[in-house]
């Protein structure tokens, strides 16, 4: 498909975890790092548009949070839009940024994602962790997201015979990967036995099947590809973006074991890029719970329905395997500051495709996929990245 392409020219990332920094400082750090990473420098005044992905966790600044990004990125005056699609907020913010550039409306775009989750009192935190599910039919039936994904997991196990060990392997692998990522929340190796023996949260999911509550921010800078080449010799091209939506409540979706929003987003992104899953060097998938990574591998075309367990237990999705998945540790072990995750995935693509991922570098990485899901699948984005050729 012809037309203008967007490319990443810079990316920044804070540590993820239980952090002393507040939301302003996190945003400032991520944005400063993104600007500093542009090889030949970028004046902040050149930013035409900015997008902030954030759920607004805790309600500290629920309305007009875009102004916080303008202030902390020091781009006050530039139009900033906050995008809220639950855990896919930054995935959709990134997509908006790409569209702004592809349409010609903007030349330089800042996309940031932020969540500050750990400074909230316990009961209030549990309230916020459930606000993105269907309030009347899921939450008030007694489910938080762990419960919704547990229903998906139990059904996946019943339909496909998915063994608990395959779910456990997702957690083990992502913890292993996170040990190589200095920004990750966890640097502790775990075993399958640890995962299987952990206390259940919502059976069949246990504590080690769940991503943590995290603070963090990430930011990327996008430019029209022709401009990108003036800013760096190694821009990372956005080969395609796709997105989809679905019914808010799991009960209204035809399938309990597949996310239609992911399938639609993937089809759109692959079509736009002109290449498919077989050419992906590594994937960043939305593993808020271990079952989510298995479902994602199937919905993204890496495995047939029911085939993700085998793919995972074979070791193919480990670093060094045929298709490394979540080399940065994923939501599971890197951490999941809700609104930051989509931007964090783009950051990882930026580092990996420029060969700058250090000890977790995927050898010969040329094409990457990032998959960001809102809630239990009411919204999803898929973004494809590739090394920008001449």
């Amino acid at each position, binding site marked *: 498909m012809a037309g203008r392409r967007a490319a990443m020219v810079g990316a920044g990332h804070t540590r993820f975890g239980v952090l002393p920094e507040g939301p302003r400082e996190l945003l400032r750090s991520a944005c400063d790092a993104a600007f500093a990473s542009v090889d030949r420098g970028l004046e902040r005044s050149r930013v035409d548009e900015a997008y902030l992905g954030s759920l607004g966790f805790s309600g500290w600044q629920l309305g007009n949070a875009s102004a916080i990004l303008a202030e902390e990125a020091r781009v006050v005056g530039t139009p900033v839009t906050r995008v809220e699609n639950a855990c896919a907020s930054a995935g959709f913010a990134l997509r908006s940024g790409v569209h702004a550039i592809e349409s010609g409306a903007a030349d330089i775009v800042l996309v940031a994602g932020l969540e500050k989750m750990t400074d909230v009192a316990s*009961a*209030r935190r*549990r*309230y916020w962790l*459930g*606000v993105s599910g269907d*309030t*009347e*039919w*899921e*939450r*008030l*039936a*007694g*489910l*938080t997201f*762990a*419960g919704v994904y*547990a*229903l*998906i997991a*139990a*059904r996946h196990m*019943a339909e496909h015979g998915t063994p608990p060990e395959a779910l456990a392997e997702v957690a083990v692998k992502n913890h292993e990967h996170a040990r190589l990522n200095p920004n990750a929340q966890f640097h502790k190796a775990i075993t399958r036995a640890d995962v299987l023996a952990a*206390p*259940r*949260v*919502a*059976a*069949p*999911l246990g504590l080690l099947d769940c991503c943590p509550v995290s603070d963090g921010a990430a930011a990327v800078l996008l430019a029209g590809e022709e401009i990108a080449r003036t800013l760096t010799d190694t821009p990372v091209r956005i080969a395609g973006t796709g997105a989809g939506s679905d019914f808010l*409540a*799991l*009960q*209204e979706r035809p399938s*309990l074991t597949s996310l239609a929003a992911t399938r639609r987003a993937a089809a759109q992104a692959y079509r736009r890029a002109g290449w498919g899953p077989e050419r992906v060097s590594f994937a960043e998938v939305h593993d808020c719970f271990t079952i989510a990574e298995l479902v994602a591998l199937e919905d993204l075309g890496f495995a047939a329905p029911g085939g993700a367990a085998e793919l995972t237990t074979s070791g193919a999705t480990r670093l060094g395997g045929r298709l490394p998945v979540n080399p940065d540790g994923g939501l599971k072990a890197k951490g999941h500051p809700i609104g930051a995750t989509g931007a964090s995935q783009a950051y990882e693509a930026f580092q990996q495709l420029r060969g700058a991922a250090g000890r977790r570098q995927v050898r010969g990485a040329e094409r990457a996929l990032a998959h960001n899901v809102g809630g239990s699948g009411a919204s999803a984005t898929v973004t494809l990245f590739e090394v920008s050729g001449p």
Partner: protein
Amino acid sequence: MTRAIAAAALYRPAWERDGRTVEGPDEDALTLAVAAAELLPPRPQPVDELHWVGPAPAGADWALPEALDLGHLTLRRHVGEPGSLYRALAAAAAASGPGVSLVIAPEMSGVPPASGPHGAAAAALLLADGPGLRPRAHGGRRHPRGSLPDALTWVRALSAGTGLAVDRPGRLLVRAVRPPPVLLAAVARDLPGVVIDTGPDAAGPPAAGPMIAEALGLWDLLALAEAPACVALARIEPESSVFAGFEATGPVAWTGAWNEAAPPPRRKWSPPAAEPDLRTAISEGAYVPRPRYLENLPARWRLAAARCGACGALSFPPRSTCRACGSSAALTAERLPDVGHVESVTTVAPGAQPTEFDAQVAAAGAYDVAMVAFAPGARLTLQVADLPPGTLRIGDSVRTSLRRLYPMDGEWRYGRKAVPVPGAPAP
């Protein structure tokens, strides 16, 4: 009088404390009443009278008719004891017209708190024109404090008041709690053939409170009324005596827990030291404005789905358009089947529940949530009630029961939960 009791049902909760049946952590008088009414067989004619016996919680006046899809009826309440059930039956029997009357008597385990152990239960009776158990007379009084009831006088009054031949063997049942020997002697002398029953209900801890005891007494009548005849009942307790006379003119359909030979195992829970303060219990919860709650009641309380006149698909919960084809014309309400099957299920551990369920978890522990399919296009995410967590399996059949869900804006909000199908093998 034109109507007679044609069907009756007794609901008993699946929970116990100190050896007696108690309402579950998500049950109250309203949910007990709905549960009993839903045990009744299909009604032959439209219900045109709805009676509530005993104390009613706030909101019952509109909530019970709404839950039973009888929102056009005014709830008639009968408070006071003893004998309020019989007064309600007499009023319901006196109705005329082509419809039927419903009389519902729910009773919480703590009512009345001062008169010894009681259990929770609810009775529902359907009165229709035709054969059945026809109320003839009733009465009752509270004994003066400290005095021995003049029981024999009451037994005679029963005979006189009903015109029923109480001297015929087996036609009068006297239920007595701790009967004074003088009563037993007098009845034996003056009314030979009268049955004095000091059976399990009368002798041991009552299975239920006063209203339910009256309803249980009705069940005893059935044993006396196998052939069409006049029957009567007296109930004598240390504090009060009530009597009622009935004419049995045909069979009564009895359902529910009237005489469980082997009652299912009961679960235990501990109530909180104090009921949650409804004004403050919402501070950490999701917010559902009252109008949004009310507009969803047909779906949430009565499982009303929408059938599309254009494509025939079923949509649940119903919204303004068909989920399948998008048509907004010719959507008609259709109640989902009573029984669905479990497509998936999880056990939510304490600590993983939404804050709205903190009090319930503190009282009763973990709970299951199931995805239940009732028809193509109609699934519900339902919390599971009454079953021990972790026992429901994919493929099991469940039905639903109205329960308390969460407190908000100063009131309890209600919705349906999944419960085991009666008679189904224990999971």
